[in-house]
């Protein structure tokens, strides 16, 4: 699996979302289920999948699909 596939799989796991739903419009504002529990789950899976330890700032910033990608890039994970 490529890193992008791994990344998408996290969203599938947390939201039950399909790959074609994921993109610019997939965010806390547009996805009604996206609350702190879901955000926490994304963070846990990102840390686990990519062997990271994210900062509180990253955790707070992870409020949409693209932001998650930026956080990974910032932490040296290439997508």
């Amino acid at each position, binding site marked *: 699996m490529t890193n992008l596939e791994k990344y998408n799989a996290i969203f599938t*796991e*947390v*939201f*039950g979302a399909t790959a074609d739903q994921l993109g610019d419009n997939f965010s806390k504002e547009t996805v*009604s*289920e996206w*609350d*702190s*529990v*879901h*955000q*926490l*789950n994304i*963070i*846990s*899976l990102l840390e686990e999948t990519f062997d990271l330890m*994210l*900062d*509180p700032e990253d*955790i*707070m910033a*992870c*409020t949409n699909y693209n932001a998650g990608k930026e956080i990974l890039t910032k932490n040296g994970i290439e997508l």
Partner: protein
Amino acid sequence: MILNLQHIDQQRIAAIDSNGATLKYAEITQLSQHITYLVPQRALCFLLVENNIGGIAWTMGMLSSRQLVPLILNVKTEEALLQQLLDTYQPTYICAPASFQKEGILVDQQFGYQLTKVSEGICPLHEELSHLLPTSGSTGSPKLVRHKYDNIEAAGLNISTFFELKETDRPLMVLPLYYTMGLSMVFSHLRVGATILITGLSMTDPNFWKFLKEQRATSFTGVPYSFQILNLMRFFRMDLPHLELLTQGGGKMPTDLNIKFAEYCRDNGKRWIATYGQSECTARMAYLPAKWALDKVGSIGIAVPNGELSLIDTDGNPITTPHTEGEMCYCGKNVTMGYARQQSDLALGDERNGFIRTGDLAYFDEDGCYYIVGRMGRFLKLFGMRVGLDECEQIVQTDCGIECACVGTDEKMIVYITNADKQNEVKDTLVQKTHIVATSFQIRVINEIPKNEAGKKLYSKLSIN
């Protein structure tokens, strides 16, 4: 006034919300008197709340007036479920934030909420009935818990006693107002004249942390997942000198996380108190005193003041020896009157008389501290919210057209099905209907759902791990 609120200095601040609004004790008193004046006859009101001062004002105003009996609900309750509740209970009034669309006659408007008369009908309400809460926030069951005014007094007294609450406390409230534990925080803190810091902000929102620090919160109450978030947010590295008490309820905490928080509190001069409770008993029923937080980690501790825990065996006889499992029972004034399943049930009196079988399997140790080992009832507590297993089976049956068997732990629900093609559909349906994170559901395919000769599902044959 309820909880003797008239004895509190009326100029004190009862609540501050993260929108910057404040609520004085005097304003609760005035709203309560105003409701008495507006509403000629005791009536049912659906109170749709957000975590803000308006939510606290209207909740306490209605309870104190004794004229409006609220069913307290999340303002974001799914439309179909809300409609089902409206059809079932036919309230005379709805009270909701101004942004909430509804038809009817506007009766009053205060603290950002509108009280609207939506029906001329008045259903009979038992004179002791104070308020109603849903038994399950997620699966859409219209079953409600019937509370009485004495439950509020008992919860306020018991909880403020064992937490040693005082006037200068500034508890941070993230738990929803429509959730039994959130509501009990309000009762216990208002009773002592404290100032509740209430917020609906997500704990992963920077403004949440700003609110906590700027308002100098002295205590925090959460469910296990709240503490998982605190942990991830590097809570242990933060400088929070005002925070003196951390309390946890809403299901069993993972042991390693529990120890981490208990050790942190011990080393930093703070108190860590784990609690146990149910909506049927106006929240808290047991607590583990801070001195035992580490020695007896995982225990729910002892009964709250003025309450009593006991165990019975399968024949209903009392168990008096330590380390013997049985069904845990509770006795106290915070035990609610019973359930409501239809409108006419709102006229019913107390069906429990202060005693309840909890449906939890437990034992106690030599010091009388209780440990929960399992559950006899068919529900889980996912993220502190009760989720009925039978209700979930019903959802799958109705929406996916297949039979399933739901079992699990407070960490995960396992759904056994026999049709491999339906795996994704079942998961999607449950996520959509319950709004619970998809990782909480695991769908497993088996050849046959085990049943006895009478056709009853044999859940004990299905693995929960």
